């Protein structure tokens, strides 16, 4: 059985994609992709993490192991990321769109990052905050943006501008508290989402037609999955979907426990 963090009752609308709604595509009719990700197999019971630094503060609350968060009720997997893949070859050619710049909060809260996955896009800003009473840092291992690793003193905040899109989710870590990890998605479009505590994600505002998506999980491989009971191979963790106007419910995608072997 897996446990949830105490702060995991996040608003569905906040953790799933909403940024897409703010950007208009050239298509008059748009579609929404809905997927539920579940674990195929019995989830391991991951004990809380034990802080080896700043125990006086970080040890006050249990720090959940967020490497694989599985809902004990329906095996839904939290923090699975899906985004429209736009690679030059094999990717979807999206219509030109204006991206509305937004600011996203990434908080160093109770010695963990909140949220664990930030969905952003090119032109947005990440405001890294620190409501904790201990100092943190946030090490962004960008590929295309300038790598940054600012300290964030207790009560402080730092803004990171996302000037470039990233080809895949980027890891963020606090080096002072080495268990603190997060991911940030920075695409040049608004069509990305992360699954909530029930394993469900939605991507809204999608143009209709064949669209290629790419899936990612921080510690798992999404090459071999089971889609609505049928074994399916997602080459390079990608899948295609013919998006129709309105809701496109892909159903349930099961990820085998073995996919998290490295964890």
């Amino acid at each position, binding site marked *: 059985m897996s446990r949830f963090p105490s702060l995991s009752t996040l608003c569905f609308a906040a953790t799933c994609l909403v940024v897409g709604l703010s950007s208009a595509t050239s298509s008059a009719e748009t579609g929404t992709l809905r997927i539920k990700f579940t674990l195929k197999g019995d989830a391991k019971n991951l004990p809380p993490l034990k802080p*080896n*630094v*700043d125990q006086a503060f970080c040890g006050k609350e249990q720090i959940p192991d967020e*490497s694989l968060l599985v809902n004990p009720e329906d095996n839904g997997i939290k923090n699975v990321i899906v985004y429209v893949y736009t*690679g*030059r*070859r*094999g*990717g979807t050619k999206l219509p030109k769109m204006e991206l509305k710049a937004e600011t996203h909060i990434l908080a160093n809260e109770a010695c963990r990052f909140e949220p664990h996955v930030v969905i952003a896009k090119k032109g947005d800003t990440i405001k890294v905050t620190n409501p904790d009473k*201990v*100092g943190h*840092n946030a*090490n962004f*291992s960008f*590929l295309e943006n*300038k*790598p*940054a*690793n*600012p*300290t*964030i*003193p*207790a*009560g*402080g*905040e*730092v803004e990171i501008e996302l000037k470039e899109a990233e*080809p*895949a989710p980027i*890891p963020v*870590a606090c*080096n*002072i508290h*080495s268990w603190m990890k997060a991911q940030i998605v920075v695409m040049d479009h608004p069509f990305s989402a992360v699954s909530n505590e029930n394993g469900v994600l939605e991507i809204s505002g999608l143009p209709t037609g064949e669209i290629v998506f790419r899936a990612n999980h*921080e*510690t798992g*491989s*999404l*090459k071999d999955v089971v889609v609505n009971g049928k074994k399916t191979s997602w*080459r*390079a*963790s990608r899948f295609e979907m013919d998006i129709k106007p309105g809701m496109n419910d892909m159903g349930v995608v099961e990820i085998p426990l073995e996919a998290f072997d*490295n*964890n």
Partner: protein
Amino acid sequence: MRASLAAPLFLRSLCGGTRILSDSAVSIGLSVSGLRQSIRLVEIDSRGYASVMRCLPIPTVLILCVLAAGCDSAVESFPPNRVQALVVETSRGVSTENAASDATVLLKQWFGTPESPRWPVEHFDTEPTKNLVDPDKLLRASGRVYSDEADQHFGLYREHCVTCHGVSGGGDGPASLLQNPYPRDLRAGVFKWKSTERAAKPTRSDLMLILEHGAPGSGMPSFQNVAAEDLDALVDYIIFLSVRGEFERRLLYDAVDELDYGAESPGDDASLTLASSFTRVASEEQGNDGYWVARDRLNRVVQSWIDAEGEVAEVPPQPENDAASVERGRDLFHGQIANCAGCHGKEGAGGVDIVDFDDWTKEFTTRLSITPSDRDAVRPFRKAGALRPRQIHPRKLAGGFYRGGGDGKTLYRRLTQGIAGTPMPSVMVAEEPSPTTLTASQVWDLVHYVQSLAEEKP
């Protein structure tokens, strides 16, 4: 006197050298500055692995030179970055065998070989990028070790650098195994000791400074006795290796992310092998997708080196370094804003239990959700050439060494920029004092305190 000679196997036994991880001897470099100095033979194989040779009497060496004459063979190619291919494969969940193979073809066409490196000017978009590296200096620094009649030295990289940094600059030469920290892997394009902003490349002056002074506390020695023009050529070659290596690393990502490389090759319209056949194309209608993706990546990598000269981190004038400043710095060092003691320990004495690694290690471990101590998970990367994961420790500042320099300006930049590739973060500097930021004056107080620690006993 400098000479180059071949390396038949019997020669190795005659020399009594201790061979380190060398599969095939391909050349032996010999460097003698005069009869007073000993002669050291260095045997180099295709990965830059060298045999440690003992000193030999000069007549013996001369005889060996004659015996070996004519058998010299070249280091045919730069070894491909197999670790990076595996990183991309693991990260993206797709085979990179074809991508790596085709990238190697393109890299050889564009950047040449260790014997005959080339700067692919025909694919650059701007004059500054074309002129970043001098092809003549590349030829000086590359290839076998010898000198001409005018006593101009050649093969400088192989003579001075390859044993630690490896043929391709991967930081994986044979001596790397014996060093802590490991020699720099130049291919990441990430440099610690520089005057520029954290994410920026170093300037030429920064690289020259490291060559001249070394990095105290690490295996990087000073090359102050090497002629200035030789060091200048080496700077060009280091930039060349870094550009080539970073381009290779990023191209492997691009091959998967942009060109759809996988278990199957993507076909002629995206093939990097075909892209390598284009000498110069002027418009999007010419060339193929592979060419344009590679060319775009190349120009972006090289441009970052051009940009570095304008990205030198500013340092305000230094206020007086007196006892009051040191005392203020002590408070800041142990306070919550800078929180230096959180990693460097009370009074910089170290001893804080932080388990962390540098970015070169994290790339094939933690960023792929692999625990560095998990030998089974790490083994494929080790087989591909990765060095054993080794924990990085915050510098013990009390009485310690400052690898990148301990002068005020340098330490000020360490604080405001952090150290690229390491967990060392940067502090935020603000105009006015606040509970969450430091002013420039306070950063200087910290510098003065840290400098005072160097005088204390560890």
